[in-house]
């Protein structure tokens, strides 16, 4: 069902947990399927210095969360805003069709975090 890369990110998720004193926090939840994700960001000079996540969800949701954190590290906020859920799924080498919707939380949480950061910092 899942490819090896997905299994790898699920089995050894990167950047798990809560950052201390994060510069921004983003949240998202699929009301229907019940998955939720929280994303933590450290931002310096408009760049994502550090990132971590916490996810309640299926294998696809966890792997997507982990994948996203790898994708955004070092990116500017503008660049990060352009990452879509599809990009995350693609970077994972694809997800089973029925599972695609489960990957729809990672980019959403990221965008939410960036928006929160900009709001707080008046950008």
């Amino acid at each position, binding site marked *: 069902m899942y490819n090896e890369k997905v299994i790898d990110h699920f089995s050894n998720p990167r950047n798990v947990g809560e950052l201390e004193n994060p510069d921004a926090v983003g949240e998202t939840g699929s009301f229907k*399927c019940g998955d939720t994700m929280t994303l933590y960001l450290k931002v310096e000079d408009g760049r994502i210095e550090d990132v971590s996540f916490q996810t309640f969800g299926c294998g696809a949701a*966890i792997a997507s969360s982990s994948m996203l954190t790898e994708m955004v590290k070092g990116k500017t906020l503008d660049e990060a805003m352009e990452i879509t859920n599809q990009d995350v799924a693609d970077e994972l080498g694809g997800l089973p069709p029925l599972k695609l919707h489960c990957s729809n939380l990672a980019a959403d949480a990221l965008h939410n975090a960036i928006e929160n950061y900009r709001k707080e910092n008046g950008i």
Partner: protein
Amino acid sequence: MKSRQVYMDHGATTPVREEVLEAMLPFYREHYGNPSSLHAQGRAVRRELETAREKIAEILGAEAKEIIFTSGGTESNNIALRGTAKKKGTKGHIITSSIEHHAVLDVCRDLEKEGHPVTYLPVDKYGRVDPQTVKEAIQPDTFIISIMAANNEIGTLQPIKEIGSIAAEHKILFHTDAVQVVGQLPLDLSKIKVDFLSLSAHKFNGPKGVGALYVRKGVRINPIYIGGGQERKIRPGTENVPGIIGMSRALELTSTGMEEKSEKLSQLRDRLISGLLKIDEVILNGHPEERLPGNVNVSFEHIEGESILLSLDLQGVAASSGSACSSGSLDPSHVLSAIGLDHHTAHGSIRFSLGYGNSNNDIDYVLEIIPLIVDKLRRISPTYKPKAI
């Protein structure tokens, strides 16, 4: 990676036992005739088919002519409910429970759309239907009650004896979906007032694609499929002979020394349950005692079922979950909702269903790996706060 293979999904399906397969093989090879054919080839097969029917009937405490062969549990359920409604001709009231298998529930919903009012009885927090609610739900035009013998997800046994008696008192037909019970617990139809009972061979180490419907003598139903004269026209079509022979053999095997086997299975089950309940924030779903000997269903708070399944699978353990993400639909199991679990808890449910072949070693293995899996996933979870140590 896969250090071991442990199959704990017997509620979904079971392996065919070698003795069962052996009984089937001659019917693929030399005895290939059509049982409806008049020639020697056909007659030989007809004889064996009827012997299989007698054997199944005897084990269930029924008569041979009360057994109709079908293609499985789904078909048996559909024939019982729709066949009765069709025979009746006019609209009437149906009573069922809110935790039936979809092959009963969705038929009831379909009949409801067609104008038959349906009462979906609630269950208590253990998943039990209270016979009193059955009695109260009866209307003057109630014509059938369908309550499963045991639930496939949480394993709760229903008081079908009491419900059967209530139905009989009121001269209402009673159907029970016993797909999960046949093969796990003894059943004597001469002692329970049941008009229809569904069973499916692949749940008791028989082949997939074959089942039976018990139809009490004297009860008339209309067929759903029409065609030849097979199975008293209730289920026409060339009979799945090897499948039927296999089902009969499987039932025979599973029924020998069943009390003892059920007892052993219950012991395994209880070991697994008590081991799992040692983990923090784990809830047992279903009834603590009145449950299938092979059924364990627990919810792990803060984590999601499919990710637990996947972790188990990566370590060679096959189980199942009532989580939305594992069913392809978006909603969690209707059974877990009916017993009052909130969405998050329902999503974290796992069913381990034990069966023929499972050993104490299997239980040890699962109890060894599951705390690690749960711990790892909880560390990722946004809602889990580890207890202060």
